[in-house]
Structures are given as C-alpha cells and as structure tokens.
C-alpha cells in the first residue's frame, strides 16, 4: 500500500482489520456512484444477498464509511471505509473493514463459550 496516498490517521485503529486496494479504470465520480448509491452497489454486491448498509460518512467523492452486518442472530455490525483517489490511469480505491470486536472481547467470548 502506498503510504503517501492515504492519510494515516484514517486507517489507524487497534481492532483487527482487512485492507484491500484496487486500481479501477474509471473516474472517482463513477467509483463513488458504484459504492455510495444503492443502484451502484447492486452492480457488484447484490450476489451476496441482502445486507443492510448504513452509511455514516459520505465525503463525495473521496471517503465513504458504512456499517453493516451479515444476516444472523449473533452477527455484529462491522465498519467499512472506502478511500477514493484519482491517480494516473484511473482511480485507486482502498477499502478497510474493521472487525466488530476487539481481540480481547473475542477472547472473552471464546473462553466463556468453552467454559459454559
């Protein structure tokens, strides 16, 4: 991941997280339309079934943050952040999904599950 492209403070968090970066041959506005609107998301997310997306930050067309949770009674919501930057040849998209729980909380739940 290129350090200069993404502001560090936006990707710092102590929870486990997954980061993926992709270069798309499209404008930041087109990327924005694909991730920030329901119609746009249907084009690449709908195969996964219904998942309610709750957008909490929308800084068009540079930064989008949403919360979502997979279907299921024990599923916890997790945070997804997109950073969008115009670069030569298209647009770079960095996506960061942050784990719903701190490692310690996961440990506690695991220990409780083993012992109960």
């Amino acid at each position, binding site marked *: 991941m290129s350090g200069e492209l993404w502001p560090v403070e936006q990707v710092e968090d102590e929870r486990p997280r997954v980061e993926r970066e992709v270069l798309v041959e499209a404008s930041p506005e087109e990327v924005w339309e694909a991730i920030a609107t329901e119609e746009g998301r249907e084009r*690449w997310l709908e195969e996964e079934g219904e998942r309610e997306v709750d957008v909490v930050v929308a800084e068009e067309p540079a930064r989008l943050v949403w919360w979502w949770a997979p279907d299921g009674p024990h599923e916890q919501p997790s945070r997804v952040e997109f950073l969008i930057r115009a670069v030569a040849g298209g647009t770079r998209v960095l996506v960061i999904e942050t784990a719903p729980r701190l490692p*310690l909380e*996961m440990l506690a739940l695991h220990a409780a599950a*083993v012992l109960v």
Partner: protein
Amino acid sequence: MSDALGAVFAALSDPTRRGMLERLVREGSTSVPELAGELPISRQAVAKHLASLYDAGLVVRAPGEGREVRYRLRPHALAGATAWLERTEDAWDTRVGRLKRALEKPSR
C-alpha cells in the same frame, strides 16, 4: 450465570489483568518475572493475577527455560478473530474484483 462465566468476567474486570491479556495477544507468552520487571506491582501480585486468569481458563501454563513457567493464551482463543479475518479477506478479494469489472465493463 454459571460460575465459569462468572470467573471469566471477574478475571476480565481488572485493568491489570486485561493489560496482561492484551500483552499476550501481542507477544504470545509471558512469565511472572517478566511481568514483575515491567509492572509497578510485586511478583506475588503478578502471580496472583496470572492465577486468576488461569482459573478462568483464559491462559494456560507452559514450561519455559529451566524452572520458569510461561503463560500463554488458551490455544485457539483467538480463533474467532482469525476466522473473521480470513472470511473478510476472501470476501473483499471477490468484491474488489466485482467492483472493478462492474466499472470497467464497456457496455456499462
């Protein structure tokens, strides 16, 4: 609430013990002398905290060098975290591919 669950919550209710667990998450293992060298509490107090984590099933004991006893997180304690990471990595590999194809499709 079962006694076992009560022991877990009691063990986790103390900030010093939570600090010890967080250290184990980061570093893998520790020992009474190691912790006593770094924390502003006595060896005896460290041993007591570790015993409480052990009784709660959060850590296990393992032999170290010589007579040293080392403490580790219970095996697979972080399995939930690892499974989430693997699942989420796979999911985003697929999704960024789909996003790219959706945006670059000429017939768009």
